[in-house]
C-alpha cells in the first residue's frame, strides 16, 4: 500500500475513533448538546475523508462499490494484510 493511501487510511481511523468516543459518551450523556455538535462535526469530516478514499483507492463498505468502475470490492489488501 502506497504511503499516501496509508496516511489517508490512518486519518480515517483516527476520525472514526473520535466519532466512536463521542458515540459512547453520548449514549450515557444524551443531553450534552456540545458533545453532540462535536460528534456531528467529526462525522462530517469523516464522511469527506472516506469519500476521498473510496474515489481514489476503492470501497470501504460494499455499497461504495456501486460507484466504482467494476466489482473491486474483493481486491486486496484485506484489513489484516495491511502493513502499517
Amino acid at each position, binding site marked *: 500500500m502506497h504511503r499516501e493511501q496509508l496516511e489517508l487510511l490512518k486519518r480515517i481511523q483516527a476520525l472514526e475513533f473520535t466519532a466512536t468516543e463521542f458515540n459512547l459518551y453520548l449514549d450515557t450523556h444524551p443531553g450534552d448538546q456540545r458533545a453532540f455538535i462535536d460528534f456531528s462535526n467529526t462525522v462530517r469530516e469523516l464522511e469527506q475523508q472516506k469519500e476521498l478514499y473510496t474515489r481514489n483507492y476503492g470501497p470501504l463498505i460494499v*455499497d461504495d462499490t456501486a460507484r466504482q468502475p467494476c466489482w473491486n470490492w474483493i481486491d486486496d489488501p484485506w484489513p489484516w494484510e495491511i502493513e502499517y
Partner: protein
Amino acid sequence: MWIYEKKLQYPAKVSKPDLRMAKYLITQYGGPDGELSAALRYLNQRYSMPTNVTKAILTDIGTEEMAHLEIIATLVYKLTKGASAEEMERAGLGGHYADHDNALYYVDATGNPWTATYIQAKGDPVADLHEDMAAEEKARATYQWLIDLTDDPDLIDTLNFLRVREIVHFQRFGEALDLVQEYQNSKHIF
C-alpha cells in the same frame, strides 16, 4: 444488522513474527476475558435491558468489541505469518498446528476452546451491568499482563490502545448502571 467496513479500527502492528506471543495473545481472541466473550456477552444482554441508554451502550460497546476481535485476529495473523510446523512446535503450538495448522481458533492461552460458560445473561440489568464492568476490568488486566510479556514496541502500542478502551468501557457501563438504578428507584421496582 451490521455492515462490514473493510478496515481495522486501529492500525495493528507487530515488529516481527513471534510465536511465543501469539500463543499468549490468542486468549484475547477466544479466552474467558477476550473480545469474543465481550462482544457476545454485551450483544446478547441487550434484549433484557429496560432503558434506551442501556440498550444503546450494549449495542455500541458490543459492536466495538467485534472491531477489537478483528484487531486481535490481525495481530495473531501477523505474529504467526509464515511459521513452519517445526517452529510452531518449538513455541509450544504443536497441538495447535495438529488441529488447525496456521488457522486462527477461539482458544485461551493454554488451548482451551471458547465456551458460552464464560458469559452470563441474568435478565437483571443491575446484575448484568456489574458483570460487564467486571469483564472490562479483567480484560484491562489481561492486556496489562500481555504487555508485561513482550518488548515489541509495535505490539505494545496496539495492546495499549485496547487496554485503554477497556477503561473507557468500564466508565460507560458504570454510568449506565447509575442511570438504570435511578430509573428503577423512580419506578419503585424492588
